[in-house]
């Protein structure tokens, strides 16, 4: 079952073709890695898919429905969750309140004026925090977290929406190797057990090849190669342009 299908996606910023005729799709339970050098257009792809920017050309279909041009909040409500390359929590709240806010939004309760936000979704929030390994930090201010923890919080907020499609922009940045491995295994488990489709980018190639089912290589906005991890790794063009020696 195809969850996400992008086709002929194009976006330019002034003279830069950030994303140029990109086409790919993801099925349920699949983990697709989007890799490429700095400035390849990976984050721009994410921003296009979650509606933060609109494409110049091309279409984006979610579960067969055309979502091109919808606003981020609408796309979020269709079950697309994302994390950000520059992770941002809600800095004036505690870690737990961040999750409570996201959970309230997920349960369509953001228009409740008279309920106590801090008494709601406590258990659900705790479960999510435990999942990403933030349980001990629940009462700390999101604004003072270490960067790796902020990335974790960002992911937990994305997961609070129970997404059918999860976009993760460099989820392991700022984490130690072992932590990153654990996070990747968590994502893999979510994909395998809940059938969540995952699109992610990561500069750590070990992490990419450890969990990706398929890899798409982007270079200056264009797809350079795609396929299963082994064939992409063996691809001479990719080796020359990107993986280089020793990476």
């Amino acid at each position, binding site marked *: 079952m195809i969850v996400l299908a992008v086709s002929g996606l194009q976006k330019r910023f002034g003279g830069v073709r950030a994303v140029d005729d990109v086409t790919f799709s993801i099925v349920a339970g699949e983990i697709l890695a989007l890799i490429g050098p700095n400035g390849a257009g990976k984050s721009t792809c994410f921003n296009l898919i*979650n509606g*933060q920017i609109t494409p110049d050309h091309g279409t984006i279909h979610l579960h067969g429905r055309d979502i091109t041009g919808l*606003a*981020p*909040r609408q796309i*979020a*409500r269709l079950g697309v*969750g*994302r994390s*950000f390359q520059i992770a*941002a*929590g*809600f*800095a*004036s*709240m*505690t870690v737990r*309140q*961040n999750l*409570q*806010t*996201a959970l*309230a*939004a*997920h349960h369509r*309760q*953001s*228009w*409740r*004026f*008279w*309920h*106590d*936000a*801090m008494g*709601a979704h406590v258990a659900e929030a705790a479960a999510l925090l435990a999942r990403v390994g933030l349980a001990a930090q629940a009462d700390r*201010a999101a*604004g*003072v977290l270490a960067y790796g923890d902020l990335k974790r919080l*960002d992911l937990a*907020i*994305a997961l*609070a*929406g129970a997404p059918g499609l999860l976009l993760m922009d460099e989820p392991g940045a700022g984490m130690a190797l072992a932590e990153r491995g654990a996070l990747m295994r968590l994502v893999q488990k979510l994909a395998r057990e809940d059938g969540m489709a995952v699109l992610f980018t990561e500069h750590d190639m070990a992490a990419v090849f450890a969990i990706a089912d398929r890899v798409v290589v982007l270079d200056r906005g264009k797809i350079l190669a795609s396929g299963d991890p082994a064939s992409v790794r063996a691809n001479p063009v990719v080796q020359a342009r990107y993986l280089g020696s020793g990476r």
Partner: protein
Amino acid sequence: MSFFLTQTLTGLASASSLFLVAAGLTVIFGVTRVVNFAHGSLCMLGAFIGWSILTRLPRDPAWFALGVLGTAAATALIGAALEIGLLRRIYRAPELFQLLATFGVVLVLADATLWLWGPNDLPLPRPPWLRQFVMIAGSRFPLFDLVLIAIGPLVLAGLLLVFHRTRWGVLVRAATQDRDMVAALGVDQRLLFTSVFALGAGLAGLGGVLALPAGSANLQIDLAVITEAFVIVVVGGLGSIGGAYLAAVLIGVLQAFGVVVLPGATLVLVFVVMAVVLVVRPYGLLGRDRGESRTDAEAVTLQRPAGLWQITAAGIGLALFLAAPLLFGPFAMAIATEMLVAMLFAASLHVMMGPGGMPSFGHAAWFGIGAYGAALLAQNLATPMPLALAGAPILAGLAAFAVGAFIVRLSGVYLAMLTLAFAQIVWAVAVQFVGLTGGDNGVLGVWPADPRGFYYVALGLCVGGVLILRRVLFSPFGFALRAGRDAPARAAASGIDMTAHRLAAFTLSGATAGLAGAIFTYSKGSAFPTYISVSHSVDALIMVLLGGIGSLAGPIIGAIAYTGLFDLLLATDFWRARLGAIIIALVLFFPAGLAGWAERRR
């Protein structure tokens, strides 16, 4: 045809002086990112200093020109002193604190001018050459206006030349784009900023002295000019000199025709134009999005519900308010009511400015709508007090909703400017629609039947109102609102409709301010245009920032401290200068506000 021509020329002449002041403001903002409220005061100083110089010089054109240049130089020096003495210390402070500090300067300069030159308007005796006319298309046109018309484009050309052809100008433009980059190049930023500020101040002084022949040096110039200059800078696009000229011409000409075609509605006209421009082009005519997402320092601190000591303090405070009429008599009751109203007013501003992230320079608009709403309901429809008190916030809320629908998408300074614009429209309506509002005389005789009973009604409404706001801020709605302020993209990606939440907060804030206004009307027995003045909007801002924007306790403490301070100072001479000095000191020494300071000390 000749009507058309002369009105256009008149408009262009006033555009020139508007442009001079606005150009200074826009240049200063472009580089230092400080919205300089004191710019109008510099213009006023230009008028007074110019008056002193020109009345002592021989009265021919050459000496006049020399005197004008001398005045500009003098205000430039004052500007430099201001930059070195104050602004330099607060460049890293949150935008609103800078604004507050420059408002402190406004107050100090207003009293300094009063002290130096006295309270009277000082017209410039006009020598024959200043009274000459030329015939244009069959009608007489003042010669001096033609001179003014020429000066605008001349100064524009001069500025463009300086900014594009000199090393200094290129550095200034680079700093406008990216000031840290310029610092990295090893340029002495301090000197650059001081010189830019001096240039801007000089232009303001020039504008002030050149407006002398058509008017007088008077103490109203500061606030009148700053509002107009803000409008022009915003319409033209912050930081754009060419945009400022375009906007000045647009507004000058529009005013010239408006005076004839729609007399009595010129103010409304100007602000309507501004609103239209900003709705169509949110960054002004020639402005660009600078990615102005600078989060204020307060935004990133954790917001906690009140702790034990705060609740205890609130309890003691409440007890004092309950006992005030019994213990201290009617005078204390009047002051206590003022404090309560201020508290609700400030708390309502906090909702939109703090958690909502929408600063307002025109919060008095909603207060005024509530005040006049209640007064007119009571006077014209003989509405009983409870109904009038209920109707006022509904009116204010509806107005806030209608205005908010257009502007909550905007950010930061632009949003604040549009709230200011709307407040000015409401103010103009109150002043100019004499038949309904009584104009400057206000609406009188709206007293409650039982003053002491009313005091407790006011106490209940104000405290209750604040408690309701508190509850809302800690509801899922309040959290979603705050989430949208803290990290807009993150919130949207979680499915939060930030625009709708902001609009709801804007409406709630307006309605609450309207309630405060209605209570105030009954406590004073009247409604006046001063309730809607710029300075009343600034009062609210000061109260919020004084207390600290980080929590709801801030505006409450701020309102009580400010009202108390105000009542203490009001009885003294030169109270404005004292108040201004206190504000400046507060910004310099308590940048997180009183509540924030207390929080940190614990």
